[in-house]
């Protein structure tokens, strides 16, 4: 444990709360048993990052692992850790992470500081087979801006792994932050992944989920637009083959007027891979003049592949713009014929169609150099 006082409370709450029912709405489409840790873990993993430029360190930027941060900046970490509130989804697992985590990533951008170059970090299991409980905490100060690519990798020879991760993001007023989670676990990894971002006045958050690996990836991603003018771009790319299973739930919680959220998730599934997307847009009574969008599209490359998509709206006020869309289907055979008529073998034609399909997401990645890097990672996976 991190020896944080709230961890004891979290452990008590975790123990008091029963495991969810297999038949509950949250779990009826995904295998719960495979995600319950057999032991309370001490899974070793490494947290790494590319060095932040010295002038940024002088300006007060911190990018380090959570244990080091707790030693070097105890006051700062204590001020923000475990402060984004209890998530509505995967609650038991979020408590488990809070109770048991002893390591993770800490990223802090002081007020008014602009980190121009994208920062880069990654987490990799050491492979002793025990479950991992990484915690990520990001705080972006007033008027500050930054981009972080946070990668998940597995060592080449790694065996099965269970990971229960939780990320907290706090954007203060006028902060601007792009968080890209590039998930490239190996094919036998199973993960639970919670995320809660809280956006203050006029903060702008771009959250980009790229899910390429893992046998099972169950995620609950919550974005709270807590003050007026906050804006969130929520993007996702999922590519599954073999027996991969993605189950993503998102929450766009509009708690203040003049807030905007725009979600676009796209998945491509091959073989017998499966994706489930459930998403809730909730607009509170106070959140007048809010724009909220949600769009989920899936492309199925084989007959055995499957995608379910269940959008939900809870709107407690009027005077809002709200739209959601869903589309699931196989590749368009006319497109395949058109590309093949130019000499592309079928597999190559499909690859191009898939990369085009993902492009509407990638083209919204705010940093140009990043766009290409991500496109390369994705196309390598395809």
């Amino acid at each position, binding site marked *: 444990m991190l020896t944080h006082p709230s961890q004891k409370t979290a452990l008590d709450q975790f123990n008091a709360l029963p495991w969810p029912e297999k038949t509950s709405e949250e779990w009826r489409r995904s295998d719960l048993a495979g995600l319950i840790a057999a032991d309370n873990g001490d899974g070793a993993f490494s947290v790494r990052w590319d060095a932040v430029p010295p002038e940024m360190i002088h300006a007060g930027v911190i990018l380090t692992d959570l244990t080091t941060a707790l030693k070097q900046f105890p006051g700062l970490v204590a001020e923000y850790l475990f402060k984004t509130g209890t998530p509505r989804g995967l609650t038991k697992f979020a408590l488990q992470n809070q109770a048991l985590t002893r390591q993770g990533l800490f990223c802090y951008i002081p007020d008014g500081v602009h980190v121009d170059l994208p920062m880069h970090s990654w987490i990799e299991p050491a492979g002793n087979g025990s479950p991992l409980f990484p915690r990520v905490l990001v705080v972006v100060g007033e008027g500050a801006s930054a981009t972080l690519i946070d990668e998940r990798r597995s060592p080449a020879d790694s065996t099965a792994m269970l990971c229960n991760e939780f990320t907290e993001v706090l954007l203060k007023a006028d902060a601007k932050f792009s968080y890209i989670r590039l998930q490239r676990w190996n094919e036998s990894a199973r993960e639970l992944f919670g995320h809660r971002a809280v956006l203050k006045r006029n903060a702008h958050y771009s959250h980009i989920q790229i899910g390429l690996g893992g046998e099972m990836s169950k995620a609950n991603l919550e974005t709270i637009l807590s003050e007026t003018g906050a804006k969130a771009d929520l993007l996702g790319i999922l590519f599954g083959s073999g027996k991969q299973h993605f189950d993503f739930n998102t929450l766009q919680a509009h708690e203040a007027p003049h807030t905007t959220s725009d979600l676009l998730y796209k998945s491509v599934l091959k073989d017998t891979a499966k994706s489930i997307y459930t998403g809730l847009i909730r607009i509170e009574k106070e959140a007048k003049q809010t724009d909220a969008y949600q769009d989920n599209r899936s492309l199925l490359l084989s007959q055995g592949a499957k995608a379910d998509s269940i959008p939900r709206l809870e709107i407690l006020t009027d005077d809002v713009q709200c739209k959601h869309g869903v589309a699931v289907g196989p590749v368009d055979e006319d497109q395949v014929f058109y*590309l093949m008529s130019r000499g*592309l073998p079928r597999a190559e034609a499909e690859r191009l169609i898939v990369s*085009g399909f993902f492009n*509407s997401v990638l083209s919204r990645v705010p940093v140009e150099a990043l766009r290409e890097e991500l496109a390369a990672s994705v196309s390598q996976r395809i």
Partner: protein
Amino acid sequence: MSTPLLEIQDLHAEIDGKEILKGISLTINKGQVHALMGPNGSGKSTLSNALLGHPKYKITQGKILFNGQDITDWKTDARARAGIFLGFQYPIAVSGVSVANFVRTAMKSCAGANFQAKEFRKEFKAAMSALGVEESFATRYVNDGFSGGEKKRLEILQMTMLKPTLAILDETDSGLDIDALKTVSEGINRLRGPELGILLITHYQRLLNYILPDVVHVFVDGKIVRSGGKELALELEAKGYAPYEKTAVTA
């Protein structure tokens, strides 16, 4: 005599069990331009698609020989790499894929190890400017939101880059304004030469003023009912297809 470029022998094809091509025989030699004219729904696009091996169209009888080789069972991409190009009547949009990326990928598929990135860029730029398209065209998504004229220009741009030896141009002139028709026709004419054979499908004799055909075929109800010289196109323009549509009259 040298081997014909394309030899279609008594080709029958059906879609969803309905016969559309009812025994087509046609020979195109290298360097020749053949025009194919016929009423709507007579099966011209079906023939184009069948020549490229579209999986929806089932060949029930007959053969397609390309440079003497029987390609009737070949996959679409193999036909393309062998040198057959189809300019689509209705080009397909592929969103998210830029024109430049698409053409480059196609060239790589066709040229294999011989593909030269630097050469490609130079040639691509030159081809775009010759067809009067702006450079921004390269970064737009393939046929996505293109006007009718832009789509047809893109088809000829691809043909220019891929340098086929047989080009089947399915109504490349439809949807073009007078200036665009000229630019596109010039684009096609620049590619003409002793090696290239063209099957030009059109409704308008106007196009044939720009691209002079060696042979004109009249295509009605899945069959070639008459073949002749350029004057046949003029005759069709004057009299229409009525004299050929026996079946339609008796039905």
